[in-house]
């Protein structure tokens, strides 16, 4: 619905923000590095310099896309869940159980089954804060933050006891999941795994769900104006529960895809706060699925850039983190966009006069 001019402005704004952020980063690098130019090129160019690194970007983007989608769904229904992290653990755990313990069957059935189990696990776990919010009006921020700890500790208990692999070593994990249901490499010789296809599919599904179906219409309406939705006959409480469950399901999917693509089985503490990164992604994307895709790829790119910079120069990883923070802040700086729009509006007006 946006005019092409508005899109140009948006893109222009993002470029301006990236440029400014990089400038800040360069200044930091100039002051702290003895080989600033190597560092800068390692930050910017190395992530794209090899198919291997590009594959790494994709792999890192996969869980971010999924958690970002998960959160964009709840955020749109007006629920500020921070629970993707916990739902992701539960989903991964349940999915991994299905992967390890279900009787042998064709991978074509087994793999989807594993994904579905993970989604159900995440969705059911999401239902808890959803129900508490809808029927008791209990703050979802509190419940989800607390339930994250509960999920991590509970899965930790089970993977250290009942479901511990016999030869798991010093760090508890489940038995390895059979190789034929792990996510294959996208292309031989590239390290990107097929999770990216699942993530892309999820983007499309969530897009259709949110913007093309009646459920999406209900979800968004409840988020925008709950009174209005209720007045129109929408069962707002049910919608809230459903939205948190959909979100939990996608978060669970994020968890199992990370397991099947990277870790090969459920490992304690496997997620480095992917659920929280998802919040940033969803906010950066202003809750739009396509935006989530772009934001997640961008986020993965700067994370890989931070790594390549650390590998390829004398910059410690913390400086890379600081640059990453600057990038996130400036890209989401609305003021830059408003400024551009006003400039544009002014010049546009002059032209009319």
């Amino acid at each position: 619905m946006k005019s092409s001019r508005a899109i140009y402005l948006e893109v222009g704004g993002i470029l301006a923000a990236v440029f400014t952020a990089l400038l800040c980063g360069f200044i930091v690098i100039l002051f702290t590095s003895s080989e600033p130019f190597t560092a800068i090129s390692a930050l910017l160019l190395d992530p794209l310099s090899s198919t291997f690194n590009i594959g790494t970007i994709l792999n890192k983007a996969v869980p971010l896309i999924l958690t970002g989608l998960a959160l964009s769904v709840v955020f749109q229904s007006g629920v500020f869940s921070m629970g993707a992290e916990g739902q992701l653990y539960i989903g991964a755990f349940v999915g991994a159980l299905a992967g390890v313990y279900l009787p042998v069957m064709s991978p074509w059935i087994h793999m989807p089954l594993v994904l579905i189990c993970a989604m159900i696990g995440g969705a059911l776990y999401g239902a808890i804060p959803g129900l508490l919010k809808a029927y008791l009006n209990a703050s979802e921020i509190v419940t989800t933050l607390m339930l994250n700890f509960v999920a991590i500790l509970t899965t930790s208990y089970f993977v250290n006891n009942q479901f511990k692999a016999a030869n798991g070593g010093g760090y508890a994990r489940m038995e390895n999941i059979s190789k034929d249901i792990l996510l294959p490499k996208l292309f031989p010789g590239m390290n990107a795994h097929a999770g990216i296809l699942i993530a892309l599919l999820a983007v499309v599904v969530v897009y259709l769900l949110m913007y093309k179906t009646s459920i999406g219409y209900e979800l968004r309406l409840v988020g925008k104006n709950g009174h209005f939705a209720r007045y129109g006959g929408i069962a707002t409480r049910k919608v809230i529960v459903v939205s948190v469950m959909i979100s939990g399901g996608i978060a669970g999917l994020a968890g199992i895809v990370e397991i099947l693509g990277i870790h090969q089985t459920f490992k304690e503490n496997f997620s480095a706060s992917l659920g929280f990164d998802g919040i940033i992604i969803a906010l950066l994307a202003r809750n739009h699925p396509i935006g989530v895709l772009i934001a997640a790829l961008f986020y993965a790119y700067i994370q890989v850039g931070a790594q390549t910079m650390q590998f390829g120069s004398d910059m410690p990883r913390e400086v890379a983190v600081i640059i990453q923070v600057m990038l996130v802040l400036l890209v989401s700086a609305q003021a830059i966009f408003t400024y551009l729009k006003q400039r544009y509006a002014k010049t546009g007006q002059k032209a009319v006069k």
Partner: protein
Amino acid sequence: ACGKSNNNSASPSTSSSPSETSSASETPVTPSGEPISAIYFVNSMLGDKSFFDSAQAGIQKAVKELGIKAKTVEGGSNAADWAASLESLVSSGNYNVVVVGTSQMSDITKDLAARYPKVNFIFFDEVIEGVPNVYSMLYSQSEGSFLAGAFAALATTSTELKGANPEKVIGFVGGMDIPIINDFKSGYEQGAHYVDKDVKVVASYIGDFVNAPKGKEIGLAQINSQKADIVFSVASAAGLGTLEGANEKGVYSIGVDANQNPLYPGSVLTSMLKNVDQSIFRAIELLQKGELKLGTNEVLGMKEGGVGLAKDELYEKYVPQSIRDKMKEIEDKLSTGDITVKSSL
């Protein structure tokens, strides 16, 4: 994290099979013409003042004394990054030796080593056998913890130590309730009970490896509510809080992985060491000379100098003679095999 270490499957006593050592001589060693360019990959971050730092010290020593080139890269706390990070380093072709460790990296290392046969891997704290370009070392932390447990049992009723009380209670503070930490705990308990069957071991976990205030609080709770008077803290940075708490209470503690005695002299009576630095230095030195037995694993226990208690001048100064004598005795028995320690892994 603390002492990120451990053996995956094989039990320590069987892992080094002599038959395989013969293959070592055929294994291509870095030609003397090609200088060693090593990469040390930390699958976490430096600064644990124990395990990873210790390895780093070994590398730095090798740089200084052997003249090798080396770079250290921190892989960060996100386990999902490690495989890709290490591979991107290896595939760059800039390094011919990779130093890396912990059981969390063993699958990744096996996979990489098979695909990059020209690169040599020095792997620590886990067994990798039969891969021709990997040499691995395993530290027997249960043996080391056995010593710590025996020491604590001797200390808790000692009349010469002012802070010790008559109750036979000793403490164990772990970072998390996970197998590797519980291997420390198991060795600790075996050691304590070897000295005195009636010694009670109080074990608690902090829940992570960074929350020093909580580590301190848990240590204090053991001291206050259970009358523990010596605490073995196996919790990386969070464990420092435990040591501080013991010091404040005027009781004792045992450090871990590196020599932590100087942190609170007189309170940290000793530390359970994993001599990661020396073993890595030694491995690099052997590699340079072409004598490293690639393709094999070595278990470094008490006898091999892989683990032990930190005995510095502070130890001499603060630990009563009787306990030191007794410890000597136990160490000898461990070396000779009169005592065997079971690993819980």
